[in-house]
């Protein structure tokens, strides 16, 4: 299984502003000059490769969209603004693809705003299957394709769309995947998903505050997480911010670390970065999570508890994870 993240920002598409770009260029040039003096053999490529990832590329500004592939099967999770780049890519690299599958976790703007820019929905020879647990999936899609929200009416795309309602906590076959929706803790009903194929499992848990925090409180929804190979988790806020933003529906890195350790998850990717956060701010939240992770491992060891080592980081737009 392979997961490509086309959009990792939360709530609102967040392009890098001209002022931030200028500030970053100035910083990089300053760093270049500083290091050039101290390196005996200096290569520009080495310098660029050595820059922190949040400086050389940033975390990305497009909202939630992931492409999950296994063998010849492909599944899209959410249609945030990241789906536009996926649309361009797939029509270039696999123009013969005739059928697509999109799972919607919920219909907040940041998870559907890219759909009108997903070109296959306008192509008569394509079928786009849309899946969700919600009863109002079709109504939600119709709302997007309605003036004044968007000039193209739903009737133009209707023939290409297939609407599928999924049952909560019941596995469904989508291509070569088995997808089981589990409920997340978000202000509006939001359904994460456990996606399985080829003996690997992906737990998609973005847009969750984890207000049900113990294994028992999660009940049946704990199965979303347990023993998954990859957990994609919500870290919109730093730990301190999350403590202030009660019932905003989002979590933080340290909570994801503890959840993953308890549920024997192997790997965690954190996303849904706050649109109000600069790359430096997200980097600081990632660093806070790193310090917390190191400390909790040390504390668990001292307390005589298991010290499950996790592979984790904060997501960057465009990255691919191979399971």
């Amino acid at each position, binding site marked *: 299984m392979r997961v490509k993240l086309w959009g990792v920002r939360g709530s609102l598409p967040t392009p890098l502003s001209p002022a931030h770009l200028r500030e970053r260029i100035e910083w990089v040039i300053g760093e270049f000059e500083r290091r050039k003096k101290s390196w005996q053999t200096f290569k520009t490529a080495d310098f660029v490769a050595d820059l922190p990832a949040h400086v050389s590329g940033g975390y990305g500004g497009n909202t939630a969209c992931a492409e999950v592939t296994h063998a010849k099967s492909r599944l899209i999770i959410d249609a945030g603004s990241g789906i536009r780049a996926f649309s361009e890519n797939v029509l270039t690299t696999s123009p013969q693809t005739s059928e697509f599958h999109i799972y919607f976790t919920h219909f907040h703007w940041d998870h559907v705003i890219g759909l009108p820019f997903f070109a296959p929905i306008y192509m008569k020879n394509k079928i786009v299957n849309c899946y969700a647990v919600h009863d109002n999936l079709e109504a939600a899609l119709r709302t997007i394709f309605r003036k004044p929200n968007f000039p193209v009416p739903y009737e133009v795309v209707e023939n290409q769309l297939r609407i599928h309602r999924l049952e909560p906590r019941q596995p469904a076959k989508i291509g070569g995947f088995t997808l089981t929706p589990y409920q997340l803790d978000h202000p509006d009903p939001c359904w994460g998903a456990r996606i399985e194929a080829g003996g690997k499992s992906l737990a998609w848990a973005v847009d969750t505050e984890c207000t049900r925090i*113990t294994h028992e409180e999660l009940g049946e929804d704990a199965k979303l997480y347990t023993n998954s190979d990859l957990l994609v988790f919500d870290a919109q806020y730093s*730990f301190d911010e999350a*403590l202030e933003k009660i019932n905003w529906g989002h979590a933080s890195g*340290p*909570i994801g670390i503890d959840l993953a350790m308890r549920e024997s998850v192997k790997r965690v990717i954190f996303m849904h970065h706050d649109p109000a956060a600069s790359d430096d701010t997200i980097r600081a939240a990632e660093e806070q999570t790193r310090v917390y992770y190191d*400390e909790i491992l040390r*504390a668990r060891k*001292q307390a005589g*508890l298991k010290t499950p080592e996790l592979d984790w980081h904060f997501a960057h737009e465009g990255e691919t994870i191979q399971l």
Partner: protein
Amino acid sequence: MSLKVHITTEGSDVTIAFEGILDETSRLPELSEPVKGELRLDLEKLTLINSMGIHKWITWMRHRTNMQGSMVLVNCRPVVINQINILRGFLPDYARVDSFFVPYSCENCGFDEKLLLKRGVEYDDQRQVQFATEKACPSCGGVLGLDIMHDRYFKFMNRKSA
């Protein structure tokens, strides 16, 4: 080990001693009446705190804001100090740390011990700390040094509440 809580009352002061692990399964005590004197939270036997436990702790502390007296944390182990430093909120503005441990270890023989620093003795409200950062190892006679990164460990003292 789940969290155990021991409550003792002396006049209008209440001491709550915590023992074990503070995590998402922990049950924090309800007090039947507001504390009119000093509420002392003794953390000497708290062995581990995770982020979910801190969530619970902070919610619990917020409910203590209607208390009439003061709140102090005593006998804070390094695990507590580390979490105070990493994750804000564990120590609210209206509480203060009245005593905490600093760990020492001997690089030569591995011996370790902790020293309790007390407000009014080793440190004051101006955040001046005075204590020996090195001493003779009672096990091998070598050097017993601080087993912490000094600036990072004492960062919490710069907080308003510390």
